[in-house]
């Protein structure tokens, strides 16, 4: 590589710096708040600077060539026998862009957390976890080995477990942490199996290794041509197993249940997990392993694995959007919206648009982080109230939060032209429309778009318009419990994120698809004409109409009627059955309770019964028999052996007493023996040689 690639030598520093910060924090006392802030922010800033430099380097290296720049640094971790386990680091446009996004969002969230967590007693611990989380995520991004990726993947899981359960005194938080951990573990099992299978088939876990890597031509060809049970191509089978992991991490149906519950953690954590990092890991995994997924695709055929990805994504997108419509917890709505958006990303990946998926991922990271932090600000301002029914009219009290939140909402809903969300969604819809396998995911995505606009408008109306409703509930302390604007350390990150949510749209419009070319190679040109090609324009119009319809419907339903805490939701008044089903999250949790968990309980009970009756009896019988045997042997012992042994011991003791006189307890005596022995030995050997 060229000289300007020097910065890539520091690639390893990106995850290591936050890891060091985490390590240092984990051994420092809880009272060192300043140190925690300095270390965490310092590490994040350093990572961010490094990531930016890397990003710039990659841009410069790519320089308009068609080839995708890819730099892999591999090294041997350890060797056993002939086999060497090799790990590696990778730098390519995909993870360079992700690195910048993750470090930037992470930095802003850290800044926000300084304000948000300022009064928490476990401040330092929180920042230690946060740093660990960043470190793991960054490690995941830069790894060039499925194994290293898996290690970081699990570290991310661990850190999210720690962070969701940060307020472990709350039973719900502890339960949510466990739920998240176990649910993702189910997906990870698939991942692990897939990984092992891949290693067995290809003998390497490195993605790129100068032609010998997993994702390179030779290996892929072998995988695509081999078949396994049911006629599945090897690549399809392993890809699907890997996809299990991605489903768990990215909250795809049916493993999405942990994600809304994870809202029990502190809000910055929600922002970090649901916006920037953890959920992105699944999408990133699919994007990273995309060649594997797409290995069986021919010029005209669609890869089987990708079909599964598309369908799961599409279903999740619509399904989660539906649930979001009927939620009342501000963070829960956002959580389901995240699930839904992740579905969109999966659609994009499934239909072959890696760049579109990643762009949506990044854009989503910005505005979802913005929304979560805004929600955090709202919660902070409303004295830890999370129920949107008890808010209202906040735009008067919290103008800055309102403005930024509105930007986030419009970006998420896909308001036309000025918001990044619009363009990224447009791209996905465009790709879905052209998918040869089935048109249905496209329609599901359209419905999802409509619902997104609907529920976000609903939330805005509930939270920011109308009157402040908590007053009615507790009027006696109304004056001091008025919502207030958050401090600058919280609103400044919001502003920065809002700016990002708007500006990011510039780099991926159809007119100047710079980002796609950056990810997939090739040079971007500015052509406004592309905006007005028939396909693009029509689709744009269609989605604008859908968004407008969603917003209009929500406005019609919610803004015109007065909302109250005691009253029922307007939608509930109209369609009580549907609303209840949605409010209960379409009974997925209940379904799990009724099936998986009940089966578990039943199995547990069965095992218990088996233990208690069958094995217990068996053990008792065996032990009774051995007691009998031992009685007999005891009798023999006492009569015959003991007597003989006693006399033997007596002899030993007296002789031992004699010998122990040599044992003076003084080292010098012993050393003298050793010296004498040495002399004797040498003389002995000399004598042998003579003889």
């Amino acid at each position: 590589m060229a000289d300007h690639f020097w910065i890539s030598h520091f690639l390893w520093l990106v995850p290591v710096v936050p890891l060091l910060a985490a390590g240092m924090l984990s051994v420092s006392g809880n009272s060192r708040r300043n140190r925690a802030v300095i270390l965490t922010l310092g590490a994040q800033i350093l990572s961010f600077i490094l990531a930016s430099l890397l990003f710039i380097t990659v841009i410069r290296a790519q320089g308009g060539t068609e080839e995708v720049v890819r730099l892999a640094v591999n090294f041997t971790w350890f060797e056993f026998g002939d086999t060497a386990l090799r790990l590696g680091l990778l730098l390519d446009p995909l993870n360079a862009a992700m690195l910048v996004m993750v470090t930037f969002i992470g930095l802003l969230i850290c800044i926000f957390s300084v304000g948000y967590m300022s009064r928490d007693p476990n401040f330092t611990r929180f920042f230690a976890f946060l740093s660990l989380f960043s470190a793991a995520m960054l490690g995941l991004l830069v790894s060039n080995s499925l194994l290293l990726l898996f290690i970081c993947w699990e570290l991310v899981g661990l850190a999210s477990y720690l962070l969701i359960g940060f307020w472990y005194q709350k039973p719900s938080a502890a339960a949510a942490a466990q739920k998240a951990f176990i649910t993702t573990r189910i997906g990870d099992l698939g991942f692990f199996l897939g990984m092992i299978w891949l290693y067995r088939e290809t003998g390497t876990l490195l993605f790129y290794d100068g032609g010998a890597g997993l994702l390179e031509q030779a290996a892929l060809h072998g995988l695509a041509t081999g078949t396994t049970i049911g006629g599945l191509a090897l690549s399809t089978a392993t890809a699907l197993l890997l996809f299990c992991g991605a489903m768990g991490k990215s909250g795809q149906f049916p493993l999405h249940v942990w994600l809304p519950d994870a809202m029990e953690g502190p809000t910055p954590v929600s922002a970090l997990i649901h916006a920037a990092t953890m959920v992105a890991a699944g999408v990133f995994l699919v994007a990273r392993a995309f060649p594997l997924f797409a290995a069986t695709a021919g010029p005209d055929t669609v890869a089987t694995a990708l079909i599964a990805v598309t369908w799961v994504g599409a279903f999740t997108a619509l399904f989660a959007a539906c649930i979001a419509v009927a939620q009342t917890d501000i963070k829960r709505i956002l959580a389901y919206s995240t699930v839904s958006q992740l579905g969109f990303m999966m659609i994009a990946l499934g239909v072959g648009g890696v760049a579109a998926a990643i762009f949506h991922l990044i854009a989503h990271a910005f505005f979802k982080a913005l929304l979560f932090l805004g929600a955090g600000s709202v919660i902070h301002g409303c004295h830890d109230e999370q129920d949107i029914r008890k808010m209202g009219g906040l735009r008067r009290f919290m103008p800055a939060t309102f403005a930024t939140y509105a930007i986030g909402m419009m970006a998420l809903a896909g308001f036309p032209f000025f918001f990044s969300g619009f363009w990224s969604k447009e791209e996905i819809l465009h790709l879905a429309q052209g998918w040869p396998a089935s048109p249905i995911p496209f329609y599901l995505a359209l419905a999802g778009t409509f619902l997104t606009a609907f529920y976000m408008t609903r939330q805005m109306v509930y939270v920011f318009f109308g009157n402040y409703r908590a007053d009615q509930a507790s009027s006696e302390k109304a004056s001091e419990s008025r919502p207030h604007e958050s401090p600058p350390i919280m609103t400044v990150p919001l502003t920065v994120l809002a700016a990002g949510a708007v500006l990011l749209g510039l780099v991926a419009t159809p007119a100047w698809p710079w980002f796609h070319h950056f990810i997939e190679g090739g040079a971007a040109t500015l052509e406004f004409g592309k905006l007005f090609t028939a396909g693009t324009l029509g689709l744009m119009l269609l989605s604008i109409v859908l968004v407008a319809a969603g917003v209009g419907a929500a406005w019609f339903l919610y803004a015109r009627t007065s909302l109250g805490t005691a009253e029922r939701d307007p939608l509930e008044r109209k369609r009580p059955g549907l609303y209840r089903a949605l409010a209960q999250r379409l009974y997925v949790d209940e379904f799990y309770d009724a099936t998986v968990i009940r089966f578990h309980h039943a199995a547990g009970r069965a095992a218990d019964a088996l233990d208690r009756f069958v094995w217990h009896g068996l053990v008792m019988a065996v032990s009774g028999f051995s007691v009998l045997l031992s009685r007999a042997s005891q009798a023999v012992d006492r009569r015959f052996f003991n007597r003989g042994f006693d006399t033997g011991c007596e002899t030993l003791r007296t002789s031992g007493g004699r010998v122990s006189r040599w044992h003076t307890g003084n080292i010098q005596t012993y050393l003298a023996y050793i010296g004498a022995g040495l002399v004797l030995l040498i003389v002995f050997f000399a004598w042998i040689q003579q003889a």
Partner: protein
Amino acid sequence: MSTTAAFIAYSVLTLVTLGAALAAVSLRNIVHCGLSLALAFVGVAGFYILLGAEFVGFIQLLVYVGAVAVLIMFVILLTRPDGDPQPFTFDRLRRALPGLGIALAVFLVITISIRTSESLRAGAPDDAGVSIEALGHKLVTSHLLPLQITGVLLTAALIGAVLFAMKEDNN
């Protein structure tokens, strides 16, 4: 270095080292023993330098004279040996005789086997000084593991020594 000069240096060093070692093990005032030990270490360092291993020689000075000998003397002060040195008596000599005999026997046995061994009469190959670069390179390549283990050992010894010598708190 010319043969004569080397031989002079060898003789002087032998005198100094063995004299100091003899003093270190036989003097009655223990502080004098410690100081003689330091001198003996200096002599050994001289031998290293004579043998062309300057680096080790100076390391020996730095570690043994600068640290170990001083440490020993510190401990002598901290333990304040019981009373004045005892006067020389034949009784004490008699009790030490077996030990001295064994030590002498060891010396004789080793010396005789050295003297009778033909293969040790060889002279040195050409002057082969220690190249510090080569040494450093070896330390961080082929001997990296011992180096790291030494580091761990020193750390452990440091912590152990501190823990041992720390004053026991009331609780």
